[in-house]
């Protein structure tokens, strides 16, 4: 791997590549896009054309005919693990979209392969790179704004992400429902903040398909105290994104996990609010996907671990799996039985 630009191939020419990965590669001074792979070659070609990019296109990596330094896997969820595994076995570093797999077993197999081969596998939890998330992590660890007592999170919209293949409506292909598509970033952050929870419970509205609304509860057992909290994720109810962490000194608020600031409201003063910024990312003009990409490239070049590697992504998948195992039905939207009017 030379010191020149890092040669990237994107696998999957769908909506997330169009919206995030191609712009990230093009914006990065250290990366260059040299190939796009998609079973629909016309779609791959159209993607390149829409950005005015001259890149090789092919239906699979083997037919691409170019040498590259690493790949971004942005295919439907059920293809993340098999595609990534095949690249890892060839020694090719991968930045794979989350979730890393649709089963814990597949994620573990991938982690073993990556570790065994010494190949970088970074997983696309891009919100880890936001100033807001980093500041919240710092605030929790440093106890600068008090000791954490409990937390609450919500994130809901009527509808949302529409992948071109529509795999999001198929629980098997997506690996689940809204807990995977929306909640997985939050689960990753919980583990980052406090490790694996001691207790979980979970209610959702799944009834033959992927859940579109769910409520998860967690208890984290620290040495001196428990931290409990819950999260609501929805694709059917508009719930403005918000993370609230209650501490001994007040409330820490993170209105967006992709933002650059958090707010602290001290106890006992309704008029006071502090806006808190993570100094090191406060003036970083790069979008989160570019930061994620450059973290991946730096990991490939330096030999260090990426911000979120396959092992960490497996931990969040394990938590996801625990929640699904604890599944209880969410009631409240059934109609009473009656005959037609």
């Amino acid at each position, binding site marked *: 791997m030379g010191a020149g630009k890092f040669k990237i191939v994107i696998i999957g020419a769908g909506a997330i590549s169009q919206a995030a990965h191609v712009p990230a590669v093009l914006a990065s001074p250290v990366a260059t896009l040299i190939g796009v792979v998609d079973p629909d070659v016309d779609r791959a070609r159209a993607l390149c054309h829409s950005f005015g990019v001259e890149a090789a296109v092919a239906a699979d990596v083997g037919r691409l005919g170019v040498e590259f330094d690493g790949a971004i896997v942005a295919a439907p969820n059920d293809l993340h693990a098999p595609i990534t595994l095949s690249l890892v076995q060839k020694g090719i570093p991968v930045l794979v979209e989350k979730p890393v797999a649709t089963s814990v077993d597949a994620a573990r197999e991938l982690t073993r392969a990556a570790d065994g081969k010494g190949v970088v596998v970074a997983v696309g939890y891009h919100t880890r790179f936001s100033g807001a998330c980093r500041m919240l992590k710092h605030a929790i660890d440093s106890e600068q704004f008090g000791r954490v007592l409990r937390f609450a999170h919500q994130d809901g919209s009527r509808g949302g992400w529409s992948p071109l293949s529509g795999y999001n409506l198929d629980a098997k292909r997506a690996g689940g429902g809204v807990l995977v598509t929306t909640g997985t970033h939050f689960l990753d952050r919980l583990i980052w903040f406090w490790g694996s929870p001691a207790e979980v419970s979970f209610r959702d509205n799944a009834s033959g398909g992927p859940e*579109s609304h769910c409520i998860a509860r967690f208890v984290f057992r620290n040495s001196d105290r428990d931290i409990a909290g819950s999260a609501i994720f929805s*694709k059917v*109810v508009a719930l403005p994104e918000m993370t609230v962490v209650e501490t001994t000194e007040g409330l820490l608020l993170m209105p967006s996990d992709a933002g650059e600031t958090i707010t602290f409201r001290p106890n006992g003063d309704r008029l006071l609010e502090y806006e808190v910024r993570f100094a090191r990312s406060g003036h970083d003009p790069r979008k989160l996907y570019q930061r994620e990409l450059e973290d991946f490239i730096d990991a490939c070049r330096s030999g260090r671990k990426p911000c979120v590697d396959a092992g960490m992504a497996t931990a969040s998948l394990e938590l996801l799996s625990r929640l699904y195992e604890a599944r209880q039905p969410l009631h*409240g939207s059934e109609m009473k039985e009656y005959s037609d*009017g």
Partner: protein
Amino acid sequence: MAERLAIIGASGFVGSALTEYAADHAGLDVMPFCHSTGGASRLAHRGMSIRQLDLMDRAAVDTALSGVDYVVNCSRGGDRLMLSGLENLLHACSKGSVKKLVHLSSVAVYGDPPPASSTNEDAPTEPAPRSYGATKLAQDRLVQRAASKGLPSVILCPPNIIGPYSDYLTDIIQSIETGRFRYIDGGHRCINVVDVNNLSACMINALRSEIIDGRRLFACEPADVNWLDLTMELEPVLRDHPAIPSISSEMFVDGGAAPGPSPLRKQGLASALKHLASDEVRTALRGNPMWASMEKTAKGGVRLMGKGVEDRLRDTFAGPIKVAVARPEEMIDRPLIAQQLRGVKHDPGRCHRELGFTPPLTFAESMQSFRNWYIEHFDFGSSEWAMLGKASR
């Protein structure tokens, strides 16, 4: 084999409820169509097979509706989709074997506020130009034209829609909890609502009715309900909130007449020169080196005439210093509160008589079902629910 019902716009609030209702109660082979998968999660969680359809693609619409017996159109979108897309839908319905089209319109076709005469469907339709009501009226006319050419059709006009998943009710809750809601005249003015499941049942009745002439029918709750009734029904799921103040309709209208377009200024040479000499225009023009140089020369010339002349010229062009009155703005939800000015009860009697339709749920039952849904889906009463409420204020 069961008859086939195509629901267009099945991923929306009404479309989803209708799809679920029809699948459970109508005895029809239900085919939900939506524009994209992003909004279809509510149906997907039941494992229903959802088809994507772009109404702007006439050939695709023709193919999708081939062999369909009934069509309900709940689609929404921009004007182009709502009109050209509907034309494609009507074309496919007319060309195929469709036995009945039910088109979802809105009471907004009568205008906002609606005329006092709109207690029944024969009232004049007077929506504001380019409003949502105007687009819905244009749609009604397309449907009625298709009906006159032989497509059996019914148009249903719902008001605001309540029941589980109702954004309308969750918006009212939020407005009350944040202290932005006001009653007008004590909350005693009537409100027109319909439960989404009653509306679904009404649409199924309309499909099976004898009516084919594209007539418009109100799909509203028959009970007399006012704003006080509605908010009292929401009270059990409200967080602690300030008491809801009441204001008179006159005070609301006086205090909030939306600022209209600024009266046209008297045009003339003086005003044109003033505009040209304004700081905004000069700043923009300074980007041009020639203009910047001319301005510099002119400024130098004026300065030579002495400070008194310079000051008088500045006052002439800029006029006296103006200070706007600043007062704390009362944060209220004007559009929501303004709905109380509508004050006309749309009578669903014709829908009852001509469709033989009686709503399965009473208003109280509808609100109970909303509360049940809300309590479960918002984790009502938990300490986290309280924290999130505290954070949002």
